[in-house]
């Protein structure tokens, strides 16, 4: 089984700064990490590798600096890494990104694709499902457990707010991982040295242009227009009312809302 994990390098901070002119993230000076959900996906893939003898590839779309995230994935035990990177890809929204990644994944080959649920910088949770749609693959998002897996199938537990589904899928398919799926392992020291011996294969626009048109990618190919991006203003601490009966609590809340002319 060939497992491909899509990872994103994200800024390691809750306070993401945004360029007010372009509406995009300022990455300079902010330490970068592998997006948490994606790292969970790596762990799930490596666990399957140990169980089934699969190979695990990692794919990341991003600037050349994303190399570090791919090295870390290799040092965790992934077999090979691809960096999808080209000037033409810059400014892509989730729609364009998933198109580029789908084309790259077609080139790399796969039986099982795992992505994180969502990235901490964009929080859209769109890229994974969009890749599946573009590749015409069955998908399960919000996977919290891989219950079983074999050469041509996986059985997974999909999380819902009020329950779960157990779903069996035939491969090829796509899963999106949530934090509950796995606790990512550390890199190993030997793995770090190996990671820098390996080549990271770069997939550029030229490599994918059979399946991609210039107007499908980058800013041009992105239907999302960022109207305005801003950092949320800090609000004062909320008021907590203690030791009230349910009736008293309702009364207190209604009174507050009336005071502020909300109701």
């Amino acid at each position, binding site marked *: 089984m060939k497992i491909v994990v899509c990872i994103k390098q994200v800024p390691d901070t809750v306070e993401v700064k945004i360029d007010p002119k372009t509406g995009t993230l300022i990455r300079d000076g902010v330490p970068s990490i592998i997006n948490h959900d994606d790292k969970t996906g790596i762990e799930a893939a490596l666990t399957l590798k140990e169980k089934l003898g699969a190979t695990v590839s990692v794919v990341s779309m991003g600037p050349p600096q994303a190399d*570090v995230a791919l*090295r*870390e994935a290799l*040092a965790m035990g992934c077999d090979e890494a691809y960096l999808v990177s080209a000037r033409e890809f810059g400014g892509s929204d989730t729609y364009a990104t998933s198109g580029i990644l789908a084309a790259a994944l077609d080139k790399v080959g796969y039986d099982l694709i795992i992505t994180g649920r969502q990235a901490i910088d964009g929080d859209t949770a769109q890229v994974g499902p969009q890749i599946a749609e573009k590749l015409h693959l069955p998908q399960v998002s919000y996977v919290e457990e891989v219950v079983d897996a074999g050469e041509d199938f996986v059985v997974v537990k999909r999380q819902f707010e009020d329950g779960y589904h157990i779903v069996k899928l035939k491969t090829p398919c796509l899963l999106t991982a949530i934090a509950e799926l796995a606790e990512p392992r*550390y*890199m*190993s*020291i*030997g*793995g*770090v*040295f*190996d*990671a*820098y011996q390996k080549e990271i294969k770069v997939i550029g626009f030229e490599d994918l242009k059979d399946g991609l048109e210039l107007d499908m990618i980058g800013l041009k190919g992105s239907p999302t227009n960022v109207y305005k991006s801003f950092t949320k203003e800090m609000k004062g601490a909320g008021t907590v009312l203690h030791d009230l009966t349910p009736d008293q609590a309702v009364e207190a809340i209604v009174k507050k809302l009336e005071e502020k002319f909300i109701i």
Partner: protein
Amino acid sequence: MEFGYSKEHVLLRDLYRKFAETEVQPLAEELDEEERFPVETVGKLARFGFMGIPFPKEYGGTGGDYLAYAMAVEELAKVCATTAVVVSAHTSLCAGPIYMFGTEEQKQKYLVPLAKGEKLGAFGLTEPSAGTDSSMQQTTAKLDGDEYVLNGTKVFITNAGYADTYVIIAMTDKSKKNRGISAFIVEKDTPGFSIGKKERKMGIRGSATCELIFENCRIPKENLLGREGQGFKIAMQTLDGGRIGIASQALGIAEGCIEECVKYVMERKQFNKKIGQFQNTQFELADMATKVEAVKLLVYEAACEKDAHRSYSHLSAMAKYLAGSTASDVSRRCVQLFGGYGYTRDYPIERMMRDAKITEIYEGTSEVQKIVVANWMGLK
């Protein structure tokens, strides 16, 4: 001259830190309090490659270098000096000499499981009357047929009782003095080999420090390490490498103290101000941070020179001397900045101060380091 880490070392630092903070720090206080050896951590250390960092892959190691090893000991020592010395004694003092002087068979049999962390190593040189004057070896090894017969007692042996493989220094020909000393590999459970008294120590209390007793302990003659009479040289070269490990441990303790202290002085308020806002606190910590940075450069220089196969014994002696005395000084001054709370066991700083002192003593006292440096300067 270039200052900067390679990409591998940057990634390794990240791994070491996460591992130390998640797996090692939570146990540090308990190991000290209960004088308990961190058995459970050794397995985890092995799994991620900590027990064989500077050895090639064909011998079970990670294929890393001495700088990577020094940084690992440093990061572990920042949070737990006990755990750091388990790794250091194992790597530098046991796996190290087998790698440097062992035959291919010895490397396959002993180094591979040591470097993989399947086996734990220790080193026995010091005796009740052979400390700094290590040439006064009373332990004897006599060849009898196909076996050497060992008799004598070693003291203050790190990892004793938990180690599987011991590199033991013993006298094979007393008439030849230093040139009559040899090195051997002894397996635990060899008849005639037993563990004696466990020391009750001031610091690094989770580390096992015991006597080794040899009473007609027979080992196969293939377990001679190097040649007969080469033991003193093996011991000295082993300690040259070991000192980088202990210097790294001392460096880590000092850095850990400063990290703890900076946290504390930015919380603790007196006279309506954080004590970190007072100039005395700032000057103290600035002075300590400056000295620790200088120590770091010296420790890393020694490690890099060893990696480059250039002469480094004077550098490892300088590094250990300066790192040890700095760790002691910094930890004591940090306790002072903590004030009364620093003297209690509610904060880790008193443990770190107790742990720091040993780095001026073991694997060659500070005074021995100065002898090595003076000799290197031609002062004989």
